[in-house]
């Protein structure tokens, strides 16, 4: 690590605000009348080190970077003067490989790109592809997909909360939350057959209908899960350490947050009530009754509160979805996009031909393009697909929410302490698989 001499660029002397008008941490004291006054920083113990900045490197392999993010931080003492993120350590060429695959074949890749939210991505991709094909899915499929998306939001937020707890120094909630995650895994496994990489949707339907007794199992989960939430709520929300380590960190104002393109809980914590489910709805989300939590300060603590409330709202949506789950077919009745059942494919000539045509050639959408965004746990997740009339997309673009959210990290950490960088970084809820693709 190089130690470098250079001039101090950020004035730390203004009370509470720096040259750009951002809140700064200055030692505060309480005056007699109760107002807070700034106290001049104590004289440096080692004057010869003043103005000496250090460049430190966090990552790519570091437990608190949630993957393989690399941050180069320039420190003045313990204060971050400048942060330079480096990404791309998990760039796996998803978008390139998508151009070589048929639409249904791309779905396994969507699992692996934001891997905390696999089934939600499956749904999002299928929605995009269906827009491109001009398909209207069935009633039952719509509700099943809502269930899938909300379960996915729950498990993603659980990982976020668990790992953030570890980063900030609380280990127990991690164990509790992962226990709940295992319950959701059990549900998913019974439904789809996989725990993490679900590949649950198909263009025009789902890979499988619910097995018998699944809804009761989900009902049990919905009843028990809020209890765990309450427990976690009790240990975290009013916990002095937790509050002390999250309040006031990485605050973004609403205008800034919009300008930096933040989405999801990051944006809502800053006071912008933008939720794709409400404002550009899909899957009939407008017919569900749920609230969009909005923060006021836009700091790490507000992001925590917003995400925590989203967990409860997801449970509400799940309840409603369970209640309205209609009977009927899951897949649309169109042999050009949906595979015939196996029994028919091996016994009827016509079905066999459909099967063959679909597997070998793949369904072909008309020429066109579609950008379909959903509210993923991280924010606005969009799939932009361009078709030239062949069975493979010309371009499959992922609009990764945490990529855009992460790009604001220099703005969020500058002026904070080194240890707060970890909390701020955790609050973004980054998934490197999605950021680097």
């Amino acid at each position: 690590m190089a130690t470098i001499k250079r001039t101090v660029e950020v004035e730390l002397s203004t009370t509470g605000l720096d040259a750009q008008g951002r809140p700064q941490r200055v030692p505060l004291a309480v005056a007699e009348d109760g107002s807070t006054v700034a106290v001049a920083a104590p004289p440096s113990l080692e004057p010869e080190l003043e103005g000496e900045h250090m460049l430190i490197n966090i990552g790519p392999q570091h437990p608190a970077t949630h993957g393989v993010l690399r941050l180069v931080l320039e420190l003045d003492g313990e204060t971050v003067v400048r942060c330079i993120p480096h990404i791309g350590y998990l760039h796996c060429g998803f978008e390139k490989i998508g151009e070589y695959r048929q639409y249904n074949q791309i779905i396994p890749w969507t699992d692996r790109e934001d891997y905390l939210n696999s089934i939600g991505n499956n749904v999002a991709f299928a929605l995009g592809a269906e827009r491109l094909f001009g398909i209207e899915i069935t009633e039952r499929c719509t509700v099943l997909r809502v269930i899938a998306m909300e379960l996915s939001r729950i498990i993603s937020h659980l990982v976020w909360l668990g790992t953030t707890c570890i980063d900030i120094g609380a280990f127990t909630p991690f164990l509790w939350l992962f226990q709940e995650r295992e319950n959701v895994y059990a549900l998913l496994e019974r439904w789809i057959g996989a725990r993490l990489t679900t590949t649950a949707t198909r263009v025009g339907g789902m890979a499988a209908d619910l097995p018998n007794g699944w809804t009761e199992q989900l009902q049990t989960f919905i009843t028990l899960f809020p209890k765990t939430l309450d427990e976690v709520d009790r240990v975290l929300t009013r916990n002095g350490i937790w509050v002390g380590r999250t309040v006031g960190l990485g605050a973004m104002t609403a205008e800034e947050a919009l300008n930096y393109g933040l989405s999801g809980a990051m944006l809502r914590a800053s006071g912008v009530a933008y939720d794709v489910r409400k404002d550009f709805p899909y899957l009939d989300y407008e017919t569900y009754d749920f609230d969009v939590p909005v923060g006021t300060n836009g700091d790490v603590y507000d992001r925590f509160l917003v995400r925590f409330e989203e967990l409860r709202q997801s449970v509400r949506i799940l309840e409603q979805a369970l209640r309205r789950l209609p009977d009927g077919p899951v897949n649309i009745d169109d042999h050009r996009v949906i595979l015939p059942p196996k029994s028919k494919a091996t016994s009827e000539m016509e079905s066999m031909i459909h099967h063959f045509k679909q597997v070998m050639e793949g369904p072909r959408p008309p020429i066109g393009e579609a950008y379909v965004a959903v509210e993923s746990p991280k924010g606005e997740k969009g799939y932009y697909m361009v078709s030239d009339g062949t069975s493979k997309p010309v371009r499959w673009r992922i609009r990764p929410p945490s990529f855009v959210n992460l790009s604001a990290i220099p703005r969020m950490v500058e002026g904070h302490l080194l240890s707060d960088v970890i909390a701020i970084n955790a609050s973004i809820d980054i998934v490197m698989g999605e950021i680097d693709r």
Partner: protein
Amino acid sequence: MGLTPRPEPNVVSYDPKGGEGWVTTRLDFLVNWGRANSLWPMPFGTACCAIEFMATAAAQFDLARFGMERMSFSPRQADVLICAGRVPFKLAPVLRRIWQQMPQPKWAISMGACASTGGMFDNYAVVQGIDTIIPVDVYVPGCPPRPEGLIYGIMMLQEKVKRERAADPSIRHEMEPDPTSQLYIPPSAINELSEPFGNAVHQTRSGL
């Protein structure tokens, strides 16, 4: 699928007819027993497999039962590198650096299809198996492997550790490929072997 009973673990034992003394074999046994049951893992988690690794470490599967309670996030205090997830070329030098920083004795588990072979990412960006960068002891198949699968891999590694002999230092040698050896495949031949084949890339029967 668990139908055959597991064979008795093969450990270093004293054989009166063998050339080695009671003390060395017993000492080896003791050392190996200690090592195998307190492997400190260094989780090099990059992608989805890391989430299953976390699930393995959490309450339900409880990696602590195998003496792996202490995750060592610094390579310098670790015994086992568990590479969970895909390794793109940009990460390759990082992985090698981490491996070099680990002190001997050290082992590596390659968790998941991507780390072992590149998995479904047969493209310009991903290393086709981390064994092109570091030596690997146990490959755990799966995409992602279930926690049970990872635990099985860990138990296999423990068995391997229990069979090591202090008298045989060759297992700790880091070997460079020897171009004069019969087994050496020059890079050009590797390139030829790894040319695109199968239907992964050329699956274009429909004419794109």
